[in-house]
């Protein structure tokens, strides 16, 4: 019996130490939650917001930085400005694009149409791209999302942005209340309208609506003061709420919101206790 117990104890200690090491010995990284469709309101978007959307998708849902990073797995896209024309001029080029925008679009929708030399799947002699198509499968960007990424790629590569902001969401419903682009919109006067407009609840839980990409705001007034909330809205990346990703929370609210709207948001949030 004594033998038996010491064997049991030994095994429990071993298992316990494996668990302890996995919990304490290595950093606990919270994997990102599954991607969700961005709530996009094209009607009220200016080019700055559109590019910001592209940036977010590029770094987030699109998983582009998984490969397009400094580790040499895929071409660096900040150099696409100088590279794209060279691709089109390449004798190997057999795709159907005629201009740079077309080349970029084709790279995203049909990656194997042209494979940058040295980056093809092993053994395919650069005829097959390891890059997944971005319209379907695991990335599955919608039409406007794809356009936003294209615009971002052009901007980021130092090219002139020729992509236009799509006027509708494709098969998705458009927001009837949206003002025409260029026309100044009337300020919103209720929190709910503001929240709907800026899709706060797509990421945050506020009362009944549940979003989990950002912190729960249902009782934010209990722990945060007005100054903190103001900062969180105007300069979200200055301080990142624990356990969340940087760069998710829109950082251009300052230019989007009327002053009255900003105060309204702060008033409302600071009262949620």
């Amino acid at each position, binding site marked *: 019996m004594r033998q038996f117990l010491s064997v049991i104890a030994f095994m429990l200690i071993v298992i316990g130490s494996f*668990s302890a090491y*996995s919990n304490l010995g*290595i950093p606990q*990284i919270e994997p990102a939650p599954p991607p969700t469709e961005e709530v996009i309101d094209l009607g009220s978007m200016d080019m700055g917001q559109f590019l910001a959307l592209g940036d*977010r998708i590029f770094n987030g849902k699109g998983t582009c930085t998984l490969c397009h990073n400094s580790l040499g797995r895929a071409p660096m896209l900040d150099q696409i400005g100088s590279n794209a024309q060279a691709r089109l001029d390449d004798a190997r080029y057999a795709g159907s694009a005629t201009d740079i925008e077309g080349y970029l679009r084709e790279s995203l929708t049909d990656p194997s149409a042209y494979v940058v030399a040295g980056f093809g799947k092993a053994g395919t002699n650069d005829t097959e791209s390891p890059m*997944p198509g971005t319209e379907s499968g695991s990335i599955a960007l919608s039409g406007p999302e794809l356009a936003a990424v294209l615009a971002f790629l052009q901007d980021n590569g130092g090219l002139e942005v020729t992509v236009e902001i799509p006027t509708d969401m494709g098969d998705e419903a458009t927001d009837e209340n949206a003002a025409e682009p260029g026309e100044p919109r009337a300020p919103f006067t209720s929190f709910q309208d503001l929240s709907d407009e800026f899709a706060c609840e797509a990421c945050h839980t506020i009362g009944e609506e549940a979003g989990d990409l950002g912190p729960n705001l249902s009782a934010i007034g209990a722990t945060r003061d007005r100054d903190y909330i103001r900062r969180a809205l105007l300069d979200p990346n200055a301080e990142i709420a624990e356990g969340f*990703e940087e*760069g998710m929370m829109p950082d251009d609210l300052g230019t989007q919101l009327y002053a009255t709207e900003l105060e309204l948001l702060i008033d409302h949030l600071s009262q949620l206790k």
Partner: protein
Amino acid sequence: MRKTLSFGFLASLVALVVCVLAGTGPALAQEAAGFGPAPVLTAADYPTVAGVNGRLVIWIVAQLHLWFAAFVLAVPIFVFIIEAIGMRTRDKRYDDMAYEFIKVSITAYSITAILGGLLLFSLILFYPHLFGYLSTIFSKSMFYYALLFFGESAVLYLYYYGWHWLQGDLRKWIHLSLGLLLNAIGTTLMLLANAWLTFMMSPAGVDPAGVFNGNEWEAIHNFLWNPINIHRFVANIAYGGSIVGAYAAFKFLTARTSQEKAHYDWMGYNANFIAICALLPLPFAGYYLAAEIYAYSQQMGITLMGGIFAWLFIIQAVLIGALFLSANYYLWCGMGRSDGARRYYWAIKYIAIVLIGAFLVWFTPHTLVLTNSELKSLGGPHHSILGPLGIMPAKNTAVNLMIIFTFLSFLIYRRSNKVATVSWEGMGNTLQVALFTAGILNILFLGIYHGYFTNTVYKVAASIPQVLTTFVVIVVSLVLDSFIYRGARDVGPLHWGRIPDRAQYALFLLAVAFTWLMGLMGYIRSGIRQHWHVVDIMRDNSPNAFTPTLGYAANVVSVAAVIFLTLVIFVFWIAKVSSVKTLPAGYWKE
């Protein structure tokens, strides 16, 4: 034992009926309309049953089922080999040992079946649409699986219960053939089950919307099927060996007579030998699998090797290190069985130093700078990865050195009781030393050159020549040694049982570390699918679609491992109880 038998049959009967109902029901409905696309689910499509977390239930039950299945599939493989060795050498000890191994696995067999049934029920309850979808595609293979299960049970029981009946020339051959048949069926079962899970990772035979083209073989023979098959087959043997080793270790510790001790020492030695033989090629099967995953989808490959999962490989390295160290430690302790071992004791400390050094290199994340903030600064919320490829050469070098030195331990162990009589012994030994030195230098050179003097794309290029070097060293050295020791004389009889108790704990560590490691790797294999049931085809929209942290996963694995070991202890205990007779004085009428 008869209870166990009917239990096993009952479980497979239930499994069969459920399979037919659940599997072919939807399939028949589909037949008329052709095959539909993969269902698109919402959170409401995942029933909650009794308030429990469905994913957790599936996770633990599947893991338990897998552990037992791995064990009961592996044991007949080496029982078959040991039986054959017994027939060849006409040494009855082998036959007895083979019988004892299979006896241990027989209760485990019915537990496997029960857990399989439980897994099936859990899938149907918690993930009905996923199961429905898979079963329309795999309707035939699921049906044959259930049938094969009957065959497996029948042959296993015949093999086990007929052991003493089928003795003697022709009968022994019949018995051995039964063993072969048993393995053929068992392996087929595993291959079928592997097809279903690899389909979820690398679907084939379906279009992008998940519409099945009707060719089941294509779905079975998907991209990752064979890499997983190979990896599991080898790992199962190592695992089965380690569990049986723990059994022998326990029997050794509780043995009363020195005869018993000698027997279980010998059994433990053989089990450990089996485990190590299968452990040595395992890292290569693992690399092959990882490379194939990468080839299938770069995205999946990077998810596997980068981000949070990169840290998982650090845990894995620690565990494999523990496996190697305990296996070596056991060998060194075992040298005490021979009076001739003293000649080699000096070498042990050097081997130990190299092993520990390699171990440290392996699990030090030197170029892996993945703190939380670094991870974020690298890219988006999804996977921001640092190239573990960058550290691959260093790791590869370490693992190859570990394997070579473990092999050296083994070589020394083999030599410890022998005195060579060939005239060219000195030259032979010089050759051995030269072989090892050249091999080690080559591995180091390849690792350093490719690791630090070439660019990223070529860093992995070192692994294959390194592996080849290791293989060459092992094979050539074995051949050479068998010539050097041809006609060698023994120092004296081996003293089986002359081994310290603490050596048995090395066997326990081996079994526990193996169990836990399998659980951990099960998590990553499944985890790289991320929020997909079937990658890119059927999305997981349940509230549990998120990837848990490593710490959480480790805790689940630990809980499952404790349950598993409890069941294993039960199995061992049953094996013991079945041979105990109590004489209740005055109870029965005279």
